[in-house]
């Protein structure tokens, strides 16, 4: 697996306590968590907290190398340009890709997915074609496909999991067929915390001549992603769920595919030459990067990845698995709580969704806030999934390695309070 190729190059030692969820050797790295010792933050699936090194990197950029990258011919601008190039290379290595030019910077994962749907979908889809996505998609990997399918007269087909959130081989073969031109799937459900079989889907996609697009917004922060081994053609994710700054998205794609796609946004920086009537696009990655980039954010993204790599990713993933299993187990122990998806505590990663009797999730969240417990409540930008499960909203607690056992115990205690508030006098 990728562990060998990626891990061997930089042998790092896990911090002491990484594998003990009662210990927390990470919290001190996160200024917000230090500043708010009362806070139980269980909403990392929405956005992660940032370590000090990331905040420092943003400052360092503006203090020491601020200039508009790519344009200037003076030293500062060259440094800014280099910072972007270094990050591109680093990200490529991080996701198991070999060519840094295949890494495109966008504003967020949503923009990356819009770019793919618009540029790739718009140029290859024809009336009668099919795009297959799972019912578990975040709206970001759903609406762009709805739009482009409607525009060209293609059909959007939904791959559906069983009650545990698992997608069977039969379902894959039934939904990905000769008419399928693009398959797009999340690699880690932001609602069910389940990991869809990306390799099986990409094998099938390639068998029928379709492209495999992966929404890695949730997976990249929590598991090793290797685009080559997992058969991914295009991958979208964001820096902010990875401990990097908000406003930086990544699109990775195979060179030949990116080269065949028309640009999404046009303007400065993305051209080779322009006449009154025409323009010649710059080669990738510039072709997809119109306008001034958030160079400081990109530089800080580099720092976020370095930080994670310095901590032994396998150990972090193990810790997050254990935290999630403990979270799911404690929730399942509460008689009035229903956990969505798999009832096996080990079968979730990072996120666990649930409902508290028939108390509205927004009330649950507001009352938890009284105990400074932060979770997400609502439809989690996955309305078709919730509708398919027969609910309109739910609560979601999600963990990252900087959480610990006490955070989950706090949530459970606070949930007992929610139940009490709603059952007084009954």
């Amino acid at each position: 697996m990728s562990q060998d190729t990626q891990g061997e190059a930089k042998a790092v030692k896990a911090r002491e306590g990484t594998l003990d969820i009662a210990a927390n050797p990470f919290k001190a790295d996160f200024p917000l968590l230090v500043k708010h010792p009362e806070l139980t933050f269980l909403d990392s699936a929405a956005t992660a907290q940032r370590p000090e090194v990331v905040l420092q990197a943003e400052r360092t950029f503006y203090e020491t190398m601020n200039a508009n990258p790519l344009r200037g011919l003076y030293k500062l601008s060259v440094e800014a340009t280099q910072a972007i190039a270094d990050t591109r290379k680093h990200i490529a290595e991080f996701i198991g890709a070999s060519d840094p030019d295949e890494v495109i910077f966008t504003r967020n994962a949503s923009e990356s997915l819009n770019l793919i749907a618009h540029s790739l979908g718009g140029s290859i889809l024809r009336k009668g074609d099919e795009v297959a996505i799972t019912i578990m998609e975040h709206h970001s990997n759903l609406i762009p496909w709805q739009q482009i399918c409607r525009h060209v007269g293609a059909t959007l087909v939904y791959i559906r999991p069983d009650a545990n959130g698992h997608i069977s081989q039969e379902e894959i073969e039934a939904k990905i067929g000769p008419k399928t031109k693009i398959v797009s799937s999340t690699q880690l459900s932001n609602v069910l915390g389940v990991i869809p079989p990306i390799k099986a889907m990409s094998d099938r996609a390639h068998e029928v001549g379709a492209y495999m697009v992966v929404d890695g917004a949730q997976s990249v922060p929590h598991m090793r992603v290797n685009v080559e081994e997992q058969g991914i053609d295009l991958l979208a994710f964001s820096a902010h769920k990875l401990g990097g700054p908000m406003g930086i998205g990544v699109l990775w794609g195979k060179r030949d595919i990116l080269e065949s796609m028309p640009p999404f946004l046009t303007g400065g920086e993305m051209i080779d030459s322009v006449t009154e009537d025409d323009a010649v696009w710059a080669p990738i990655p510039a072709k997809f990067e119109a306008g001034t980039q958030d160079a400081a954010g990109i530089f800080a993204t580099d720092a976020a990845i370095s930080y994670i790599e310095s901590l032994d990713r396998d150990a972090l993933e193990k810790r997050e698995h254990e935290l999630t299993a403990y979270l799911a187990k404690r929730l399942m122990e509460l008689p009035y709580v229903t956990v969505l998806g798999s009832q096996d505590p080990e079968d979730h990663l990072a996120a666990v969704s649930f409902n508290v009797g028939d108390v509205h999730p927004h009330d649950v969240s507001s009352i938890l806030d009284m105990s400074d417990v932060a979770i997400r409540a609502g439809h989690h930008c996955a309305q078709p999934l919730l509708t398919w499960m027969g609910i309109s909203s739910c609560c979601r607690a999600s963990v990252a390695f900087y959480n610990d056992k006490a955070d989950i115990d706090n949530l459970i205690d606070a949930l007992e309070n929610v139940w009490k508030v709603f059952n007084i006098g009954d």
Partner: protein
Amino acid sequence: MATDNLYNAQFMDHVAHPYYKYKMEDETYSHQGVNPSCGDDLTLQIKIGDDGKIEEASYQGHGCAISQASADMMSDLMIDKTPEEAMELCKLFGDMVRGEQKDPEELDKLDEASMLQSISRMPARVKCAELAWRTLEEIFKEQGIAH
């Protein structure tokens, strides 16, 4: 924190034992209000008396405790109010939950509903609290009774 005093016994009483949650058979107007993003779905009914005042108000539907309790408190408040007075109270309530009206004397006009003032520190819940009030406003606007 912000929500400390909201889910208190008085508030929860409206949730557990709503006084005005029932179907009215002889209503003058009936109107549905929804918050699609949270699944709140409420049907408000009002009966206008011969004197032109609101004689009775009731609601049905489902949603979070805030949308339900707020509808219950509003139904109580609106009895014997003229449409113009009702519209003014709706506006006052909206101003309160958005934090734009803080004068205690003014807020007293909202009677029990003034306890929802803490919603002004919970911006994500403003829509929940406002649902019934917005629905009532829509009735009057659609009927051209008040604006």
